[in-house]
């Protein structure tokens, strides 16, 4: 039955196609035109517009938000304000959470010593796993709980498509698809999600460029680190300065995205930008409470839980590495020592690079690992909030220049393992996945080297 049906069907397909091709004109265009006619006729009968479509407030608002003159300043100002709110708001709860969680650490230590636990167990569980977890929670939760709802509100208002509209010209000039602005914005949430969203770009060449450069905007996992760095080294009691430096970092990320796209579309992935139409959706009154609750639950807590699940084993592993002695020094010290010269060259140190290596599964845990490396094996440091972290870093020879280099490296280096895996799934190509890892790494190293050299030349480091 099926065989016969298949035969019959294919014959019919052939006959229909042949008959169709004999009809003059592009038959599909004619059909679509006809559908439009019918739709128009129905609307003529059923829809009444009171007056000429008035230029109401949203059209006027669009004229301002996407104007040549004011579009960019408004965009920057909004982003700056969001950062400022995040920095100011996160400060106090972060300190409070830090104090509470490290009070908990002391109680845990008391408990372990009361139970007579062996020191290695105390080390792995409390000094390793718990401390990493405490850092993730106290440093990451408050900024995320403020930043994500703010960002989601902008998204819900309908502002993000306007951002894409504003940026479209830039992307066109870089020889890529205007929709890359959208996938880039998606990357602010999560680079893996950003890479998946590149499916909206039809041209394979442009999609690949969007995938390869998605990593240059900081995702959820990296934002808290950037925020912490900005607050510690550029805030100096003035949150607006920290917000500005954060804004600068994001702008640099966008600039690198455009620059690398430009280079790629003129070298490895040559071609011209394809045309597209972006509809500006109407502004909608955001469902404030729902957006806040949802973005907190779906994004902030989601990222936090993911970070915590990675941080706990990573913390334990780091403690073990930091306390396994081989020829007079810990394994961690060996790795860090090996990376030290290169780290110094690009304005960082071996420990930071080790932290980034161990942080490959998720960028969220780079800072906790770094803290463990610096303090884990050594003397107890009273850690509570950002002030204490700053003290620890300064005691390890950090300067604002180191912070700049760390921000640059974090912003530009290879994507996390999840994103790399997603890139492999999207491209099905080991070659392009390797490019997606190595290209940003090279960019990050060059940028850090330049910044470090410039800083040293100016005497800042």
């Amino acid at each position: 039955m099926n065989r016969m049906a298949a035969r019959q069907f294919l014959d019919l397909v052939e006959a229909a196609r042949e008959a169709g091709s004999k009809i003059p004109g592009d038959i599909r265009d004619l059909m679509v035109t006809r559908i439009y006619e019918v739709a128009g006729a129905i609307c003529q009968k059923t829809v009444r517009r009171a007056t000429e479509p008035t230029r109401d407030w949203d059209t006027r608002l669009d004229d301002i938000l996407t104007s040549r003159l004011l579009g960019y300043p408004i965009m920057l100002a909004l982003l700056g304000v969001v950062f400022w709110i995040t920095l100011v708001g996160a400060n106090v709860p972060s300190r409070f959470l830090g104090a509470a969680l490290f009070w908990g650490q002391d109680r845990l230590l008391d408990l372990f010593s009361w139970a007579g636990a062996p020191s290695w167990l105390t080390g792995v569980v409390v000094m390793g796993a718990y401390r990493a977890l405490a850092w993730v929670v106290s440093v990451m939760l408050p900024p995320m709980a403020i930043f994500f709802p703010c960002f989601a509100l902008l998204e819900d208002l309908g502002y993000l498509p306007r951002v894409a509209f504003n940026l479209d010209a830039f992307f066109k000039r870089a020889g890529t698809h205007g929709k890359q602005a959208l996938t880039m914005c998606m990357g602010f949430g999560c680079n893996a999600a950003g890479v998946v969203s590149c499916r909206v770009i039809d041209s394979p060449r442009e999609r690949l460029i969007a995938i390869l450069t998605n990593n240059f905007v900081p995702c959820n996992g990296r934002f808290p680190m950037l925020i912490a760095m900005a607050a510690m080294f550029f805030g100096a009691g003035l949150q607006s300065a920290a917000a500005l430096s954060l804004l600068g970092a994001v702008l640099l990320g966008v600039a690198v995205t455009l620059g690398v796209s430009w280079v790629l579309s003129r070298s490895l992935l040559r071609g011209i930008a394809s045309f597209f139409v972006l509809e500006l959706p109407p502004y909608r009154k955001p469902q404030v409470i729902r957006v806040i609750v949802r973005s907190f639950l779906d994004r902030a807590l989601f990222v936090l839980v993911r970070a915590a699940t990675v941080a706990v084993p990573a913390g334990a592993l780091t403690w073990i590495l930091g306390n396994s002695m081989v020829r007079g020094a810990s394994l961690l010290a060996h790795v860090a020592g090996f990376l030290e010269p290169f780290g110094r060259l690009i304005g960082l140190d071996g420990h930071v690079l080790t932290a980034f290596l161990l942080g490959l599964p998720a960028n969220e845990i780079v800072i906790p690992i770094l803290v463990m490396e610096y303090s884990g094996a050594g003397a107890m440091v009273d850690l509570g909030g950002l002030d204490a972290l700053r003290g620890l870093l300064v005691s390890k020879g950090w300067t604002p220049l180191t912070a700049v280099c760390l921000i640059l490296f974090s912003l530009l280096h290879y994507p996390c393992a999840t994103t790399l895996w997603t890139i492999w799934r999207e491209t099905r190509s080991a070659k392009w996945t390797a490019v997606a890892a190595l290209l940003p790494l090279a960019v990050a190293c060059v940028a850090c080297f330049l910044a470090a050299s410039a800083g040293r030349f100016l005497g800042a480091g």
Partner: protein
Amino acid sequence: MGSMRHLSLHVPRGLRMPWHVRPGHAPASTCCTVALAGNPNTGKSTVFNALTGLGQHTGNWPGKTVVVAEGIYTHCGMTYRVVDLPGTYSLLATSPEEELARDFICFGAADATVVVTDATCLERNLNLVLQVMEITPRVVVCLNLMDEVSRKRISVDVDGLSSELGVPVVPTVARTGHGLRALMDTIANVASGRLATRPLRVTYSPEVEALVADIEPRLSAVMAEVAPTISPRWVALRLIDGDPGLVEAISERVNRQWPQDTRPRSAARSVAARSGIPA
């Protein structure tokens, strides 16, 4: 006991593509599949959330729903599985989203397809409605964003629109939940067949119509076997305009020997009704 098992089968399936999820796991009498189609920015995801209460975040964002979301709701003792298709302007399958939406409407064995429209720019939205109606008669038009309609001082003759289209039209404000109960009632009536629709048929040029008149009857037998929910007229039209993707999708289904037990139950039933094969 029975209801427990029933519940465990209907956990929303997140990221899986809709046609990998076979409908008909549960007794067909208690579960209907509803496809949610619509242009981007019509509040389709808001309608989805309001119906299912799944509460995933919706963004005001073109191309947001690349991944298909699924949810369930119950209404008058029936369980409805809702599939939130990607927002598209047409079903011509020129982009992955359009292809996905079209394939689900064709082969997803939906009992009803809701087309969410932006009532403030109905003309553009009706294109999709008309295209969906060409594939399946079981269509409900959701006239969303009615609050903005009154704000922009537009008036839409809902009853007139419904009689022009020949399918039910339900005005809603999904953001506030206004009209959703009526939408659920209408979905129930269309899915169960209690409300018979008479979808407007777009007629094309005489040459095209002559070809369709020739091809459509010859297609009916095959289509009843492989995809009984798709209108043969629509398939005939696609064959004439030479849509390779659809031909491929149908050929694949023609070639594949479907084991009886995995065939969607509703599909198996209507095949039985048309061809006299015992289900």
